[in-house]
């Protein structure tokens, strides 16, 4: 069955794991006013590699003596750095500065100094070396700060640590905390050197730590570049074309300004390093060192396989740009912090250099970068959930019945065990938590018009547009349960982001839970870059299935279709140029179907370029390989829906883990919650809290970790884990909803007596929507009683008609005849009970309601929504 083949591919590709080497993710930090680099992971990696291969060669090669006096510009003595003809990397770079490095600098900083507020992001594609260059360029304005510093110094002689944003940084300690990663040597070494008290004038002896000394050497040599010996007196601000912040500088007496602005860029180079083999011979090593220039234009000899790996990796990067950007923001923040504190030191001591980092700083940065690398690697290799139920129902209508059956089968297996009073109604509890934390299911249910993101915003403008520009953000917002408007930045809201971890050592069991959760955790699939989009249109029109799923089944068809379409496209584009059209058509005759799209493209480009004699440069990042790649390379939803993983993976919104014994798990989860709270890509100021549901199957316990800055003020019982106090974390445990429990039991019963699976799902969906209707009623009733100033009647019970799930006989006892009900449904719940799961979920929907348009003019809306046409339920194409 093609359905299963599709996933086999997934697992196969997981077997031959695509390793990303550290060299493929390279960070460079550069100051605009000095020619050298401030920081380059290349060197550190080099050092580490060299150390692991053999320390002798490295020692001799990279040792540089560094003298940094406290009252003058740093100088570097580089006595015998050349061995075997190879120059010191930095030396090489400085010497080479008129060449490619200049080009790189121009790309990073621009050819003309710009004065742009905030951080600028640039993406270049270096097609010669097939690298993606991602630049974060920012200008730090010190004038204000300097003034403050001086004031502070006058009043208080103690040095003041600065923070960049002026805001209370609760998470600064996060940065300062020791890394949770496996400790790397470098870090320890850095600590050692710090302990020695050798912060400033440290001269490393020959038998010193090679790695740390080399860092110092590198950083200081950059400062010793001839052009700007003391780059701290940077007058960039006066050069800048736009006025902007110059106003502030004029307020301060000029004599006090030492450094007005500092423009720094952090570049991330993704792609092949100059050497792709981790274990190289010594000779190759030397060659690598000479090729330290990041713009090595001589193309590395990449074989096909490596190229493919690379395109896959870059495809991955492009698809996950939003997430990667989020992590880079953390590094940029740290870097800004470091630079600020550096500057403070300088202004205090009236000396020193801005253009070099101390070992501690470098280590801090490197630790953060290691974390980033680790994060990308983990995400890249993360196991993805096979057969996510909701997505598969969406994307492959042809196998819908099977998919639903899997869901119902899992549910029927788990329900008798995990939905009993003994197990605390674990599964209902889990689903209650999911439904109340990620309310995306509501928007899939109550949307009124196609092609519109409705209910997200009160603004007429936002709702009326077709937000194709926002589609990726929208997808991400659905995945994390953000329900706010994506386009208007001013709107305040109390939205939350959430993720879910399911913990069970039994892999099969865990996967079943994940699959059930994947039905309620909803998003949609956006497949891009698969190919040029035309051919997809065709597929959509002609096939019931959608290309996502016919990778294997209709691969031949899709390729032929795409061929046809691409030809159309090409013809179209050529329609005005008769000559190439002609040529092209001629050539097309010889095309057969074995040609793949890429070939055709190249061919087309060639025909275009023939008269042009220009070099045919291919700017296509990422893979075009339709058949070979699992869909998570192209789609964020599938990618972030994690499967059963042995390691915790940060950005997955759904993940299965074997156990929670790992002491690092909870801190890492909390870290992620904080990162998401601070750096989420949605409009600023709208996300109030982030939360993680941790569902422990073996203990039948559902814990919700809520991270919110509001929690800091409720200091009554801060969350403590392993001796650490996390003041912004609140741990809550919710009751299960009897209503949910009843629905689940009902559909399982329906399924076991042989009802069509689709009908079971219709029932489920109807009941879920009913939950929304109940909330509307609740909302209106509350409003009414508030308006007439009367107490809310205690008899008011929305769930009085719920059949208790205990009353629903589960499969094992289905055979026995069932007598009349023994209970009165009216007693099944009491409204006053605060621990009630029904009300919990209701209140969450209620909040959603009031956060969106629904709450505003609710009468019309609610009537409309209750009047929802019942036939068009989500899965209900009745097959009969």
């Amino acid at each position, binding site marked *: 069955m093609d359905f299963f083949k599709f996933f086999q591919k997934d697992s196969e590709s997981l077997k031959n794991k695509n390793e990303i080497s550290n060299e493929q993710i390279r960070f460079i930090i550069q100051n605009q006013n000095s020619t050298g680099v401030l920081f380059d992971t290349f060197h550190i990696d080099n050092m580490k590699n060299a150390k692991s291969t053999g320390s002798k060669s490295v020692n001799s090669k990279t040792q540089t003596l560094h003298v940094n006096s406290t009252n003058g510009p740093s100088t570097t003595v580089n006595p015998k750095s050349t061995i075997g003809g190879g120059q010191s990397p930095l030396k090489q770079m400085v010497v080479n500065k008129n060449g490619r490095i200049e080009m790189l600098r121009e790309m990073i900083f621009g050819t003309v100094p710009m004065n742009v507020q905030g951080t600028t992001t640039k993406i270049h594609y270096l097609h010669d070396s097939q690298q993606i260059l991602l630049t974060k360029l920012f200008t730090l304005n010190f004038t204000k700060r300097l003034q403050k510093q001086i004031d502070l110094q006058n009043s208080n002689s103690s040095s003041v640590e600065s923070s960049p944003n002026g805001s209370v940084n609760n998470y600064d300690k996060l940065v300062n905390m020791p890394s949770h990663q496996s400790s790397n040597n470098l870090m320890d070494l850095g600590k050692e050197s710090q302990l020695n008290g050798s912060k400033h004038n440290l001269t490393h002896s020959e038998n010193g730590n090679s790695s740390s000394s080399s860092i110092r050497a590198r950083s200081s040599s950059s400062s010793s570049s001839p052009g700007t010996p003391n780059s701290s007196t940077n007058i960039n601000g006066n050069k800048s074309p736009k006025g902007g912040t110059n106003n502030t500088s004029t307020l301060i007496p000029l004599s006090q300004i030492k450094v007005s602005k500092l423009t720094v860029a952090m570049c991330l180079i993704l792609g092949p390093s100059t050497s792709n083999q981790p274990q190289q011979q010594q000779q190759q090593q030397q060659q690598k060192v000479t090729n330290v220039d990041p713009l090595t234009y001589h193309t590395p000899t990449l074989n096909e396989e490596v190229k493919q790996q690379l395109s896959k990796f870059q495809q991955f990067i492009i698809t996950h740009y939003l997430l990667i950007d989020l992590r880079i923001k953390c590094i940029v923040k740290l870097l800004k912090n470091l630079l600020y504190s550096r500057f403070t030191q300088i202004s205090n001591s009236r000396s020193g250099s801005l253009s070099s980092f101390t070992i501690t700083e470098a280590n801090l940065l490197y630790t953060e970068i290691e974390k980033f690398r680790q994060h990308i690697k983990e995400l890249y290799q993360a196991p993805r959930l096979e057969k996510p139920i909701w997505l598969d129902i969406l994307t492959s209508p042809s196998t819908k019945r099977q998919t639903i059956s899997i869901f119902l089968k899992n549910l029927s297996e788990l329900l008798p065990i995990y939905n009993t009073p003994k197990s605390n109604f674990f599964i209902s509890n889990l689903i209650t938590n999911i439904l109340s934390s990620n309310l995306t299911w509501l928007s899939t249910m109550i949307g009124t018009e*196609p092609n519109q993101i409705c209910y997200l915003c009160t603004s007429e403008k936002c709702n*009326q547009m077709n937000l194709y520009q926002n589609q990726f953000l929208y997808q991400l917002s659905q995945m994390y349960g953000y329900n706010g408007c994506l386009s208007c930045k001013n709107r305040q809201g109390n939205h939350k982001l959430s993720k879910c971890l399911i913990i069970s050592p039994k892999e099969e069991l865990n996967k079943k839970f994940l699959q059930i959760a994947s039905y309620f955790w909803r998003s949609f699939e956006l497949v891009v870059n698969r190919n040029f989009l035309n051919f997809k249109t065709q597929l959509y029109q002609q096939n019931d299935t959608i290309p996502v799923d016919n990778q294997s089944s209709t691969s031949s068809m899709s390729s032929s279709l795409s061929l046809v379409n691409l030809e159309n496209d090409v013809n179209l584009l050529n329609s005005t140029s008769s000559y190439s059209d002609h040529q092209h058509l001629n050539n097309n005759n010889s095309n057969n179907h074995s040609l793949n799209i890429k070939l055709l493209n190249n061919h087309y480009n060639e025909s275009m370029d023939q008269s042009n004699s220009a070099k045919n440069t291919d700017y296509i990042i990422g893979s075009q390989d339709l058949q070979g790649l699992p869909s998570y390379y192209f789609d964020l939803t599938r990618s972030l829906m994690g499967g059963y993983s042995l390691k915790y993976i940060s950005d997955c919104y759904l993940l299965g883990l074997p156990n929670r014994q790992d002491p690092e798990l909870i801190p890492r989860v909390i870290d992620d919650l904080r990162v998401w709270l601070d750096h989420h890509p949605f409009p600023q100021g709208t996300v109030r809290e982030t939360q993680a549901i941790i569902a422990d199957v073996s203990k039948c316990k559902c814990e919700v970790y809520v991270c919110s800055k509001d929690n800091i003020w409720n200091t009554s019982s801060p969350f403590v884990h392993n001796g650490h106090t996390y003041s912004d974390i609140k741990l809550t445990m919710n009751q299960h909803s009897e209503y949910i429990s009843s629905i689940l039991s009902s559909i399982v*019963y329906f399924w076991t*007596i042989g009802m069509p699976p689709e*009908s079971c799902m219709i029932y489920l969906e109807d009941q879920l929507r009913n939950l929304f209707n109940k909330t509307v009623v609740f909302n209106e009733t509350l409003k009414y009683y508030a308006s007439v100033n009367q107490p809310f009647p205690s008899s008011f019970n929305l769930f009085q008609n719920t059949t208790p799930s205990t009353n629903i006989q589960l499969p094992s006892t289905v055979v026995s005849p069932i007598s009349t009900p023994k209970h009165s449904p009216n007693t099944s719940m009491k409204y006053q009970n605060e621990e009630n799961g029904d009300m919990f979920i209701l209140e969450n929907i209620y909040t959603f309601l009031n956060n969106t348009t629904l709450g505003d003019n609710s009468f019309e809306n609610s009537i409309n929504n209750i009047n929802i046409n*019942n036939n068009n339920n989500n899965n209900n194409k009745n097959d009969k």
Partner: protein
Amino acid sequence: MVKIQLPTNNNIFSSLVLTHFCETHGPSVVFTTQSEIINEYNIYEQLNTAIQENKVNKEDPLNEQNTTINIEKKEEILTLPQLFSNQNNNNEFSQYRDNLKQQQNSKISTSYSVQLITISNQQSNINNNITPNKCPTCSSLLGGQALVSQNLNNLQEFYISTHQPSNHTYSIIRNACVRSLSCEAVPGREGPVFISSSDGYFLSYMFKVNDARARGSARWYGFLLIQSEPSCLVNYFSWIVYCLKTLAEEIKSKTNIYFEKEKSQQSQQSSVISNIYRRGTRSVPLKPLTELMDDQDKFKDTQFKNQQQQQQQQQQQQQQEEQNNNITNNLNLINGKNVEELISILDKTFFPMEKELISGYYQIYKLLGEDRLGCLINHVLIGNQVIIRGSNESLVYSMVCLLELLIPKECCNVTYYSLVFKEIWESNILGIHSQVLVPRHIESQNCAIIDVEYYDKSKEPDDIDDPNRSTIDMTYNHDGTLPFMTSLCQSILSIIKQNIPKHLETIQILTLKDEWISKTKSFYALKTIIENEKDKKLPTFLNIINCKYPKDIDILMFWTVSVRKWFTNEKLNK
């Protein structure tokens, strides 16, 4: 040339811009294509502004310019949707042909038409001030002119191409233009770069065009795709760059032919070459890009392609959305009849005197009492015939409308007011005149007959002086004993007894109805797997869906009609 009123509020900020580093003006915008979404809401606003403008113009006769424009306006001012709707209507044949083409080719874009129009509402055009049209290199369309086209997939969307961007996007586009042409560098000087900063997000593709007359025999151009959100640009990076590159390559190849020709001529005229290195004092002016390419339709073409690109992105999006929407609900409103409104209209037209009507269930409850109301509701729910008799049409009407709400629309066979009797298969909720004879075969067991009349004040004893008393007299010809009860009726009664405001009551009843419709759906599914009513599965099922009374199954049976209709309708729709 057609005059068009262009929309003034740009909703989505998405533009594709052709920029050029002009030798006399520096970085400048040559050609801008922007997307506009115009729906009814916008049109309404536009009309308003247009009317206001007209008014202003009339009041201000001193301004001659305005008045002349005003006269022109009177001749023919269209909005974009009008333009294209006219066009579509006029050319039925071409439309048909296009449709055929589409079927053959399934290329919707082939049927696009680009039109050159004059903008009527941009009186103060910036482009005239900044780059005079004299400069051949950095101008394209004349000021006040625009190319427009419509997205045929989304008829609300239009693409408008002008020389200069519209006023409110001007600074962003201008910044991006300057930045991309003079500040940013790319490897090899030609190629793409993505920039995201506080000024905006754009993807720039720079390219060089050979021109024998230009300095260094080259002129620099660039494409900018500016959007309001970065993630889309990054995710589509390859594809967008591919498109831009294709466009650029085409331009380059065309200019190259001309370049070769010029070069061969230039070898004889050395005087031209000497001019190449002299800035400002050019004896032979540079030729516009169109001439270089020997292609006057270039800009039209560019517009065409710009539009295509934006559109394809949208198609992508639409497919995703469709995909979603296939699965999620295609929500239509049931029966959006606003009872109150209808009644009030009826009232005002036929009954100028204000009379009490039946507006809520609680009113009936008060008039009939709980038992009789329950009986009435039960009859409605299980599909028995309910006859409302009365001599006052609007009174009967209001009652029928109220009862109608209780059951699914598909189950209703409503006659609001009739002068002849109708059988149950003709109408299950029947409003008739009080004089109409009800046939004898109508049994009171399977039918409910309600009489509603206005209270006869002459019979009223004088001592009754309750200001809130009802003026309606309602009688139910029934002995008062309940023949049967249903769960749904019980719930409805409990709602009615709360005596809550009408809208709240309606919401609650509709919610309840919704719940029961979903029960009916599962019952419908169950019917396919059970053999007869004695099947053991049936009582269990009824228990699960909380149907405690034996008559509940009658409701389900009756409501199945509606479910069956829905399912078949949906199948037909698909």
